[in-house]
């Protein structure tokens, strides 16, 4: 009965959504240009950043990214707070089964490669697809792999916390430096170099690398926390 009602309601809702989005008018009346072309132009001409998405994420809408990093930071902190127990058993990961030796050995082999890949992705964030978030996440998956493969693999929470804090402070500080040098928060105050060079885009790669560190540390910490959780 409940399901029938829900399905009916969803059908009505879906109808409205479909009427909205599938209507040809929705395409016809769209403003296709808006801010898009401006961003594409300025990315090449002023920021000298190949990857427009990176330019938007770090520069044009860098404030969003600051918020986003904060959300991750909050999520990691919240996880610790929510799962907080008086007595904390470190290194007691009974959640997952012990890994077979193939997995362990393979993990050890693949771990440096993953870290390298992650670093590559966020260092080249302004040139190729990817960037701080993606690279950071990839590094975090590397640590995840090690955590699963080796039951006694442990990372110091303090180290993670320090990395995380320094990266975050770096982000805000660069924003504030822009504030002092260029007049606005997150202003690109460094020389932008030549398009498609590794050292180009001014402050963008620096910030994205900081974001990468921060995301990597946060996600690793987050997984570490939840992995140590016993039911």
């Amino acid at each position, binding site marked *: 009965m*409940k*399901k029938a009602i*829900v*399905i009916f*309601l*969803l059908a009505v*809702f*879906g109808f409205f*959504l*479909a009427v909205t*989005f*599938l209507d040809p008018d929705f*395409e016809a009346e769209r403003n*296709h240009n808006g*801010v*898009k*072309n401006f*961003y*594409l*132009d300025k*990315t*090449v001409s002023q920021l000298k950043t*190949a*990857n*427009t*998405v990176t330019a*938007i*994420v770090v520069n*044009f*809408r860098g404030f*969003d*990214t600051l*918020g*986003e990093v904060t*959300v*991750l930071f*909050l*999520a*990691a902190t*919240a*996880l610790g707070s*929510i*799962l907080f127990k008086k007595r904390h058993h470190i290194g007691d990961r009974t959640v997952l089964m012990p890994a077979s030796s193939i997995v362990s050995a393979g993990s050890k082999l693949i771990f440096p490669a993953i870290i390298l890949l992650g670093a590559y992705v966020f260092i080249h964030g302004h040139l*190729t*697809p990817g960037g701080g*978030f993606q690279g950071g996440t990839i590094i975090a998956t590397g640590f995840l792999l090690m955590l699963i493969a080796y039951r006694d693999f442990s990372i110091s929470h303090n180290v993670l916390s320090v990395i995380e804090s320094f990266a975050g402070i770096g982000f805000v500080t660069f924003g504030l430096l822009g504030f002092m040098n260029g007049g606005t928060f997150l202003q690109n105050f460094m020389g932008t170099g030549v*398009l*498609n060079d590794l050292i180009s885009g001014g402050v963008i790669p620096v910030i994205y690398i900081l974001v990468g560190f921060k*995301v990597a540390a946060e996600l690793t910490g*987050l997984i570490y926390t*939840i992995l140590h*959780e016993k*039911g």
Partner: protein
Amino acid sequence: MDTTELIRIGVYGTSILLILIGLYAVLTKRSLIKIIIGLSIIDGGIHLLLIGIGYIKDGTAPIFSPGSENAVARMVDPVPQALVLTAIVIGFGVTAVALSLVIRLYRHHNTLKIDEIKNLKW
């Protein structure tokens, strides 16, 4: 109906369906984990919708490789991509918090059925 039109309708339609399927899970499934799965399906649908908005006919990725500086007109809209990037990360954060809450709830109630977890009411 040309190809772009078909892609558009397909992508929009699928995202709407994903949203509805996710909502169905949120509204009818009793397991907390199922509800969170539903929420992440909704998120997926919305991300797809957002990417679909930015897509244009025969578009290319908004990345300038050497020699492609004049391809601006054919590039897809980068703004929705940036938004989705942010939204995915935020969605992950919320999901992580939700799952940790689930673990807490299980610790106290020893069940994951949402209709058995209602000590706070009225």
